[in-house]
């Protein structure tokens, strides 16, 4: 009985003071939030599942199930679920696919763009969902995979629409430039298109989500620190950090949607540039 009591007291103390270091000072969140997480299932195998990977799987499952339920029986006059799903899909079709790619190419690449958009959205939004609290895209694996999909897509579009040789020629030797400049321009374009594009796509998404999570952890852990570990009038700063945390949560909702939009938009732009005869 007594041991159980003291254990629960210890657990409570650990829950209440996780952010004060040994000397009672505030310990800021760092890269440990993302790397070296303890394994939850299948420890030691290549299929080891930690918190972030579990969040990814759950987010994608929920997104697929929601889409299936909403579009299982499509009717001419949509119900509530179908209406929302159609509005979201229509946003991708009109605002991204058709606006950038035009009617024909837009229709062709819509499945790819819509899948990218909703997968990224599902995994971004978990950053502010209670009990998940970390974005599935805040480890490099997922953004890198998405970037590779986009990379393959725009090279495929280039080869398919204008032919392999013309695609390379358009990309490396843009027309309308005096020929001596090609000595300078071709290597720059080579690095820009075939290396920097996928890398920057992945980095942009990854770092947006990482930084958002760090900001949230910083705001809420410092609230915890001020309310629990600090005594005296300085504890009132906790109210400030708590307000900041709530504002950042709302801001993260915006960022989650915006990053999904920007990623899909850039993929569409790259496809359009690759597929056009001359840009």
């Amino acid at each position, binding site marked *: 009985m007594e041991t159980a009591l003291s254990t629960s007291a210890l657990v409570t103390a650990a829950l209440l003071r996780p952010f004060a270091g040994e000397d009672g000072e505030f310990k800021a969140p760092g890269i440990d939030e993302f790397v070296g997480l303890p394994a939850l299932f299948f420890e030691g195998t290549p299929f080891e599942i930690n918190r972030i990977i579990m969040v990814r799987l759950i987010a994608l499952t929920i997104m697929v199930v929601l889409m299936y339920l909403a579009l299982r029986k499509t009717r001419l006059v949509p119900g509530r679920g179908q209406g929302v799903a159609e509005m979201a899909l229509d946003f991708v079709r009109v605002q991204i696919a058709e606006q950038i790619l035009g009617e024909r190419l837009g229709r062709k690449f819509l499945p790819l763009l819509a899948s990218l958009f909703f997968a990224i959205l599902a995994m971004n939004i978990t950053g502010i969902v209670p009990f998940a609290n970390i974005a599935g895209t805040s480890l490099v694996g997922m953004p890198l995979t998405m970037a590779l999909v986009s990379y393959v897509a725009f090279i495929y579009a280039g080869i398919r629409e204008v032919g392999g040789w013309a695609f390379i020629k358009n990309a490396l030797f843009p027309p309308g430039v005096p020929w001596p400049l090609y000595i300078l321009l071709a290597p720059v374009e080579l690095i820009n298109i075939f290396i920097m594009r996928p890398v920057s796509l992945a*980095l942009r998404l990854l770092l947006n989500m990482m930084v958002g999570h760090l900001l949230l952890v910083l705001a809420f852990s410092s609230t915890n620190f001020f309310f629990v570990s600090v005594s005296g009038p300085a504890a009132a700063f906790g109210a400030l950090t708590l307000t900041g945390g709530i504002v950042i949560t709302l801001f993260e909702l915006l960022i989650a949607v915006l990053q999904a*939009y920007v990623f899909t938009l850039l993929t569409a732009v790259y496809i359009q540039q690759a597929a056009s005869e001359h840009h």
Partner: protein
Amino acid sequence: MDSTILAQITGNIATVGYGLAAIGPGIGVGIVAGKTVEAMARQPEMAGRLQVTMFLGIAFAELLAFIGVATFFIFQ
């Protein structure tokens, strides 16, 4: 000669990096957004396309700031 330390900073100079890295992209994003507002005020009917272009421009400028964040973790 005995020296007296008046002030000292401990820790890593990389923490200053993000502050420096954010200056340029901050100005850049501001110019992009401001010019878009100007253009939209001139031609409200183009607002949709201008916004798309604005987000593209912001995405490119913003990336530099995020690379600034990454260097803090890399050189920690």
